């Protein structure tokens, strides 16, 4: 029986996986994807709680998050391409020109 508990646990697992990915991966695109995963885990939490509480607000919030994520994807990928053009790499270690 799937209760809203299960959705929330799944959401927490997905979020943790995403955060872990952000912390340990070097490839910027993977990190980017991890961030997306974190966003979507939050979406899942929103939707399940919205259903549980009988309040439509959470679902509306999800639309906003998806819109922002789409815009973020567009900008983020453009940045990746510009970075790759300059450095032939998308490793975050190479993003170091501002470092002292």
């Amino acid at each position: 029986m799937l209760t809203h508990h299960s959705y929330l646990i799944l959401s927490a697992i997905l979020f943790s996986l995403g955060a872990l990915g952000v912390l340990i991966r070097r490839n910027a695109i993977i990190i980017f994807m991890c961030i997306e995963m974190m966003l979507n885990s939050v979406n899942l939490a929103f939707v399940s709680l919205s259903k549980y509480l009988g309040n439509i607000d959470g679902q509306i919030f999800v639309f906003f998050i998806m819109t922002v994520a789409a815009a973020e994807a567009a900008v983020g990928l453009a940045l990746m391409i510009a970075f790759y053009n300059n450095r032939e790499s998308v490793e975050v270690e190479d993003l170091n020109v501002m470092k002292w």
Partner: protein
Amino acid sequence: MLEYVGLIPLFPFIGFVINGLLGKKIKNEKVVGGLGALMVFCSFLVSSGILLQLIGRPAEERIFEKVIFTWIQSGQFKADAGFLVDPLSALMIMVVTGVGFLIHVYSIGYMHGEEGFYRYFAYLNLFTCSMLLLVLGNNMLLMFVGWEGVGLCSYLLIGYYFHKKSAGDAGKKAFVMNRVGDFGFLLGIFTLFWYMGQTHNVWTVNFREIAANAHLLPVGGVVTLIALFFFIGATGKSAQIPLYTWLPDAMEGPTPVSALIHAATMVTAGVYMIGRLNFIYIRSHEAMLVVAIVGAATAIFAATIGTAQNDIKRVLAYSTVSQLGFMFLAMGVGAFTAGVFHLMTHAFFKACLFLGSGSVIHSMHHALHHAHSHDDPQDMRNMGGLRKAMPITYLTFLVSTIAIAGIPGFSGFFSKDEILWQAFSNPFHGGLNIILWGTGAVAACFTAFYMFRLVFMTFFGECRITAKAKDHLHESPLVITFPLMVLGLLAVVGGYIGLPKLIGDMFGGIPNYFEQWLEPIFAGSHEFTLQQLAHAEVHHSHALEWGLMGASVVIAIVGISVAYTLYIASPQIPKKFTDAFPALHRAVYNKWYIDEIYDFLFVNPCKALGNFCWKGFDVLVVDGAVNGVASIVRGFSSVIKNLQTGYVHNYALSIVLGVVTIIAVYVIR
């Protein structure tokens, strides 16, 4: 014409602006030099017009003040930019523009082909403008502007050959020593302004207003202080002991500059200033005594140095210092008219002497250059017998030398004899009079000696340069000899406007025009003297005056004969003399080691202090504080900066840790 007095300093200023800004582009020496000379000539014309107009007025209406605009106004303090025309300033502008014009013309020939020709004329015009501002200014502040302006131009022109280190050093020396004097001048202005304002509520720096309120000044006390402050200013500008050492070094500049600035005009500014402020000096017996003693001491001291110099310009420089000493002696014994008279005649004959020496140097330089010799063209030991090659220069030089030596009939005699007579007979210094007169008389003897030594070494005897060089000796062109002839003529006749009463009476009562002319300026002081000193009208017998006049003629002739004996009749004597007294000769030749003493007493301690302030204070304390703050910050940041690794993961980790911490705090609480 009086209304146009503002044009007098304006013309040279226009010349300065045009030559200074465009001279480099014009390139044509005739245009640049012609413009410079023309502008001064225009000033000369306006000055002449003003002089004629003043002569046309009755004596008591010969003061005219033209205010152009209010320069500074602040509370009680007010200073105008205005010009004061009176017999004294009219005389000065005639000397400055007249002699100045001749020297501008001379410079066109003398500076021919020099690099920076336009620069020279720009400076010379600026100098003329400043000098005219100095003498025409109707208040002390405007006078001070001119005073500083001439100092600046003097510095620029002494350092004209700035690629020579000695010229740069001489310029700096002149400027710094003048600053010492200017400091005294400023203190004098402040003290006078403050005293008149505080005690009598007369807040003014205007000469006429001060003179009108001169009766408010007490005798002695603060007036002595004011007079001495102003005198410090005068010693700097007019090269008196103790601030005279810059003037001989100023000979590094081009010769016409020496003639104009360091003989005829600028150095007489101190004498002019004391003449202008005569009502202050007459009220302080002590200050007058100081002026007289310093003047007499400078006169004889510089004269002794002049006897042993071999550089033609240096002899003339020491002669100038000595003659300025005579002028101050005159000021110090209350003979203001005689001092200003000597100022004028000295401007004529000394300008002529300097320009003559320039003509000689010019010719020597060419001759030595053609012969590929590296001998010094200014050293009199290389000269000799030049009278055949340069007859006009020789004649004008000889006339001026006779004038400075004080032979009757030439201008210098009338002015110098008047000073000596006043030094002897003035009512101020009592028993010291005889000493002042004696010092002056001995200095006059030395003057005659070293001036004729110069003439004999330069123009007489055998030429001491190589035969090859000798063929290239030639008379200078007309542009150089013309000013010489005019000045030579003035050196002869310039004295006749101030005939002593004694001689005038002999020729059917010719009055002393010069004294009459300046009378309105010094009348107040004269009356004051009569009131203060009951015995002021002591009548010395005519026989005594004739006797002293005869004595000064004898003195001059003695000086000349000694020079003749030593340098023409038996030239081996000077050598024997220096061998007999080597220490004395060395001391005199090295200018009594005054420069070395000053270096030891003032210059080196100042340098040491400067070095201490630089290395001890500025580098250690000031720079140390600034750099110290910077290095503390840098040290701190070198620890802190390790937090900023630049790795995205580290930042992400800290964000996550932060979020976890915040949530943990909320959950646990």
